[in-house]
């Protein structure tokens, strides 16, 4: 019987090129790995939902499209992580997204912060995507084949988010007096929530087994990359003490409840609805 597809050769230079084509699609993670995937997925999901608030409300048409395209990429990553987590926790991606309460979410405090003005939004996208870029790069070497595959898929998208946010950070920081002031203020608004990203304790066991990337090990490069961007943008690295972030353990600010209310209302009012 005929088969096609052999003509599609995979360039060995691409990230994830060595990963087998279909081996990963039905694998079932252990409960620990599923909880880790949930943490990664929740960051992406809440990022997507927050940025999605800007649909038709962006500061200009191009940026409206850009921010919501970034949200779409984040939603795609969230779905892959949540589907995988769901196979280990015996839940569907929709059950995980729509029928968990705040305390069951593992997202960090940074991604739930309000969009604020454009400086604040760009600061948040910059910090989030820079962190995800380093994290996904590390995950390419994860002993978990599925997580490595998702990272290989998402990193190309996140690279683009970093570029976009860096470009705006420089344009605003090195722009007018007002744009500089607002970009700096946006960074300072987000800064207390950066520390939480680099805490190893929520996934310590999985770091030892080679599944998870040690977030603490990414801090040095994160700081160096950020300092370089901020220097070009004539901005200062904020010196503000970290907030007590416990999102990874289910303790969230009131922001998350409002985000979930909007995200989940339809699915909860009309369980099983399809469209």
């Amino acid at each position, binding site marked *: 019987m*005929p088969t096609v597809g052999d003509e*599609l050769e995979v*360039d060995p230079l691409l990230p994830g090129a060595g990963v087998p084509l279909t081996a990963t699609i039905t694998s079932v993670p252990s409960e620990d790995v599923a909880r880790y995937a949930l943490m990664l997925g929740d960051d992406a999901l809440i990022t997507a939902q927050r940025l999605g608030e800007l649909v038709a409300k962006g500061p200009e048409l*191009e940026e409206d499209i*850009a921010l919501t395209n970034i949200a779409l990429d984040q939603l*795609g990553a969230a779905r892959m992580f949540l589907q995988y987590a769901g196979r280990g926790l015996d839940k569907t991606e929709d059950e995980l997204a729509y029928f968990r309460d705040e305390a069951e979410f593992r997202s960090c405090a940074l991604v739930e912060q309000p969009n604020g003005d454009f400086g604040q939004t760009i600061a948040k996208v910059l910090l989030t995507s820079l962190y995800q870029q380093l994290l996904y790069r590390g995950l390419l070497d994860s002993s978990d084949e599925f997580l490595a595959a998702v990272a290989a898929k998402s990193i190309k998208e996140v690279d*683009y988010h970093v*570029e976009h946010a860096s470009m705006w950070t420089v344009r605003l920081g090195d722009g007018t007096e007002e744009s500089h002031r607002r970009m700096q203020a946006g960074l300072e608004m987000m800064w207390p929530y950066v520390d939480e990203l680099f805490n190893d304790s929520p996934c310590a066991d999985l770091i030892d087994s080679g599944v998870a990337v040690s977030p603490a090990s990414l801090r040095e490069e994160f700081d160096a990359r950020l300092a370089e961007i901020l220097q070009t943008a004539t901005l200062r690295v904020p010196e503000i003490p970290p907030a007590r972030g416990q999102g990874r353990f289910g303790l969230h600010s009131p922001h998350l409840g409002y985000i979930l209310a909007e995200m989940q209302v339809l699915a909860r009012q009309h369980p099983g609805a399809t469209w």
Partner: protein
Amino acid sequence: MTEPAETAEAIVRSVRSVCDPEIPVLTIADLGILRSVEVEAAAEADETAEGKETGEGKETGGTAGLRAHVVITPTYSGCPAMETIRVDVQRAARAAGATEVDVELVFSPAWTTDWMSDEGKAKLDAYGIAPPTGKAAAGPIGLSMAVKCPLCHSLNTTELSRFGSTACKALYRCSDCLEPFDYFKVH
């Protein structure tokens, strides 16, 4: 009665010819998001239980159907066209004679514009969308070569917006003929 092998060929052709819903001039094979199509004799259903004993029955076009297994991969991880493509693939395979179709979505290895066929790039250009200009594997994103205006073929073009009408495109404008156009990003 058509030979199963012939029907199988038709199923493969039919699946290959499914078009991208957002860019209807490109087939999913042109785009490189169709990873494989396999057609095999379907596992015997209840009605074929008798035929199974005689063995020869299904070989000569008996009651057993053909099962198509299709593997597709998304361009961008959140691409909303995938669900439509999945349904279109199902329909195309059945229309060509498949009795069972399963469409599997894989993420790995990650899709790249390097998989787009030359024919597909030519079709894009003719449709008014500038095709990707470089190799994703050759370097970091954003270092693509000059983008050629699909209307007047000038290389004197500028990026208006890094994000365009779909996740896979950016918005450009030609500085010579002044027309804005979509550019399929190197990815």
